[in-house]
């Protein structure tokens, strides 16, 4: 690497799953965000909480791309911090580095037993891994120096070793010329609830930073270019993880329309952080029920919706399967409900900590009967906020369940988020029954859009019986009449279809005039954007899955070559084919549990 200013740099922290790599990576990313860098992060950790120490299976990684024009966490790292021999091996074998990368290794963790645990067959790991000479290996005795730093702290050996990540963070802060006082301030914030941990961590961090200056002869500091104007505009920015952004979108929506926010949920990776965040937000008046199972999660939410709340449930693919029948109930009862599916690798338990876009068809069709729901997909960690908010707005205004798809990559990744004020967010007008219906309300009454009215317990003169059975289109009571059933099926279908009138047109990104169009949906937007830029082609990226934007067909028809790129075996392509006869869709699919690599998309499209 040279000493010039760089546009963006990819850093990868990797070590044992007990080495605190996620914390270190998150702190460095957040620090960079506060200093004004755009960020995109990719935590990559095993499902086991603590896999056997020093083994290949226990390697936990955290990658961040920082700078400007950042769309993805980056295919390959420019800087790698490898806390042990196993981490180095995983990084190198997976080709996760650039040819001019700087790799900082803890030389204290390359002893013979360490090498054996990481399944090296020789005594020279660097030669064995065949690391190109262009890569600069920076050996640092991280463990020794952390011990030295804390020798007077009184901490036991185990606690001392746990602080190695702070020494590494200090070195990286020096490498990127981050002001150490900001880093210390951030550390104090991070450990606000455990102040006893602050002094030792600050000491190790500072020592790591100062040690970095010793490296100045062998390594150049990296300076990032000042930020351009690729952000959303003026305002206040912070870094936010997708799950937190999702939770906050729900909070904002509830406050905007004056509803109580209710979440019924059951712990499931990678969605649980949404419940964690909302359970901590009692200051915002959020009611959270950690239910006895996934079904109870959605059913308590349906109960809260029946009682007049903004009701939500959060889950991942297996949980969405369990909730299917109850989502059908919300469809039949025509109650507002927000279902958040943070997709992970499937089927069954699958790859709980890895990312995938394989729940699309389940979200669209995975219920008994004719059972349409609105389906949305967030496409960045930051816009999880916007789409959680929109999911609430659509649900409350159209008396329908809305499934919001995110995934592991968005949920755990962080990005720069422009903090909105509540006043600037679009109004939300729940479909509450007007006073004029008092005394003769029934749950089949609809407005001119075909959306039924919402009345809930506590409203005098609106008492009624809601049902999961088919209801009479006029009276709202149980009906098994054949013609009525067909009428009601069509009414529910039309109600969801008319949501298309409320969503924005599909907007072509990148090089709209090209004859090649990449098509994507959900979390792949960043990668596809970067690929389209590089290829000089156009990108149509979908956040509104059902209903689709009205101009979808018109857009798709303009291009000779339309390539639908997905992290599944072609679910969106199948869906598009079912919607638009006669159009040809080429497919590019990966199902590896990992986000796309821009390079692979580019290579595919180039042929």
């Amino acid at each position, binding site marked *: 690497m040279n000493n010039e200013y760089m546009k963006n740099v990819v850093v990868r922290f990797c070590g044992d799953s007990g080495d605190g790599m996620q914390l270190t990576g998150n702190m460095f990313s957040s620090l960079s965000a506060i200093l004004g860098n755009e960020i995109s992060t990719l935590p990559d950790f095993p499902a086991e909480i603590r896999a056997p120490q020093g083994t290949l299976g226990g390697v936990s990684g955290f990658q961040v791309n920082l700078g400007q024009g950042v769309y993805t966490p980056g295919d390959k790292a420019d800087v790698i911090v490898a806390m042990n021999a196993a981490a180095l091996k995983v990084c190198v074998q997976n080709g996760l580095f650039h040819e001019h990368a700087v790799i900082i290794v803890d030389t204290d963790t390359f002893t013979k037993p360490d090498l054996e645990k990481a399944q090296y067959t020789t005594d020279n790991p660097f030669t064995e891994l065949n690391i190109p000479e262009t890569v600069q290996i920076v050996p640092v005795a991280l463990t020794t120096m952390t011990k030295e730093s804390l020798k007077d702290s009184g901490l036991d050996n185990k606690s001392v070793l746990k602080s190695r990540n702070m020494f590494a963070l200090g070195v990286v802060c020096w490498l990127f010329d981050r002001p150490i006082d900001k880093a210390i301030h951030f550390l104090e914030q991070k450990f606000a609830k455990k102040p006893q941990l602050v002094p030792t961590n600050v000491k190790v961090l500072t020592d790591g930073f100062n040690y970095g200056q010793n490296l100045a002869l062998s390594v150049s500091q990296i300076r990032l270019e000042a930020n351009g104007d690729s952000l959303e505009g003026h*305002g206040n920015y912070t870094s936010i993880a997708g799950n937190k952004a999702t939770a906050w979108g729900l909070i904002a929506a509830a406050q905007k329309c004056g509803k109580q926010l209710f979440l019924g949920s059951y712990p499931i990776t990678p969605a649980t952080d949404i419940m964690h965040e909302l359970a901590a937000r009692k200051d915002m008046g959020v009611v959270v029920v950690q239910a006895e199972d996934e079904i109870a999660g959605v059913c308590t939410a349906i109960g809260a919706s029946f009682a007049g709340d903004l009701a939500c449930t959060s889950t991942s693919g297996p949980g969405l399967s369990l909730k299917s029948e109850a989502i059908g109930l919300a469809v039949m009862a025509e109650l507002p409900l927000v279902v958040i599916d943070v997709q992970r690798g499937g089927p069954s338990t699958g790859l709980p900590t890895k990312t995938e876009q394989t729940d699309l068809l389940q979200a669209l069709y995975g219920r008994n009967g004719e059972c349409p729901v609105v389906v949305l997909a967030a496409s960045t960690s930051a816009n999880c906020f916007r789409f959680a908010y929109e999911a609430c707005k659509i649900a409350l205004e159209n008396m329908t369940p809305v499934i919001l798809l995110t995934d592991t990559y968005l949920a755990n990744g962080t990005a720069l988020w422009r903090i909105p004020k509540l006043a600037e967010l679009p109004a939300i007008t729940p479909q509450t029954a007007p006073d004029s219906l008092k005394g003769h309300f029934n749950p089949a009454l609809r407005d001119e859009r075909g959306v039924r009215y919402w009345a809930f317990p506590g409203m005098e003169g609106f008492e009624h019986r809601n049902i*999961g059975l088919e209801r009479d289109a006029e009276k709202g009571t149980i009906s098994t009449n054949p013609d009525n059933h067909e009428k009601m099926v069509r009414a529910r279908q039309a109600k969801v279809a008319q949501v298309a009138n409320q969503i924005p047109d599909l907007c072509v990104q990148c090089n709209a005039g090209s004859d090649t169009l990449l098509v994507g949906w959900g979390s792949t937007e960043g990668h596809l954007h970067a690929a389209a830029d590089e290829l000089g082609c156009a990108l149509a990226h979908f956040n509104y899955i059902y209903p689709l934007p009205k101009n979808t067909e018109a857009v798709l028809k303009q291009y000779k070559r339309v390539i639908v790129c997905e992290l599944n075996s072609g679910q969106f392509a199948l869906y598009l084919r079912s919607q638009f006869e006669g159009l040809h869709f080429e497919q590019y699919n990966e199902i590896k549990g990992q986000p796309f690599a821009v390079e692979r998309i580019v290579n595919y499209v180039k042929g």
Partner: protein
Amino acid sequence: MEASQYKSDQYVRFCPGCGDHAICMALQKAMAQIGIPPHQIAVISGIGCSSRMPHYLSPYGFNTIHGRGGAVASGVKTSHPELTVWQMSGDGDCMAIGGNHFIHEIRRNVDLNVCVFNNRIYGLTKGQYSPTSPKGFVSKSSPFGTVERPFIPGELVLGARGTFFARTLDVDMPTTIDCMIKAHQHKGASIIECLVNCVIFNNGTHSWIADRETRAEHSIILKHGEKMIFGKENDKGLAMEGFNIIIVPADDPRVLVHDAHCQDDILHHKLVQMGPENGLPVALGVIRDVEEETYDAAVSKQIADVRAASKAHTFDELTATLEQFER
């Protein structure tokens, strides 16, 4: 309030002679005596004959899906503790498919009034054995008799750390109404096992106690603070001998006085287990009624406490607490 104010305009479609008719009427009368106006009441049910009940009542009603009435009702009550919430369920709905929700609404002590219509059969699916059908019971799905051991609902309620359990019989309207009123007064999950006859698929299942001739000898109506005395002539009493309940003459000094408010549930266990199997009268009335904090109240209180102690109450105040930079 009058019972008629709690009737809906729907024609009641239980089979002629079904015990559910009596429970429906008892509930309308109990609601009238309790006096909460219909718009402040929600009646939630799952699937089954019993779950048709909300359609015949004037309050807000929600006939949901099989087994999930307890979870939906828990959501209604937790989100809106100011509402009075009734749950209508059956032996299959809440002890088979909805078993998990049933034990957890009890464990959490959600302030719900739950009527469990126990006819020991699946009626709406036309006659399969249920989790309360006796072992050996012959039904369409057990043509050679079941090989399963049944639940005793009261045991399940106590095992889930229930705070209220009552048992009543379709043909005994005064006791049914009394149990419903006491269930409403009790703050927490109040479970009423309503023994009902299925005239079509399991006729006479409770005849051992339902028959007029033998009812007084085969059942005992427990009342808190009163001696446990039963029999046509009120000549028999219940007493403890070792770990067992025995029948003694009514004037025996050992006759037990019913204490529904006793936290220790050992005796309540013995009482719910009484029946023909052990030669003892079936216990009716309120068997257990103890005070514990309710889940819904605890959830509301925690939110109120945290809100009172925190500075940020709005979204804008919340985002102001973030580490951020301006550009």
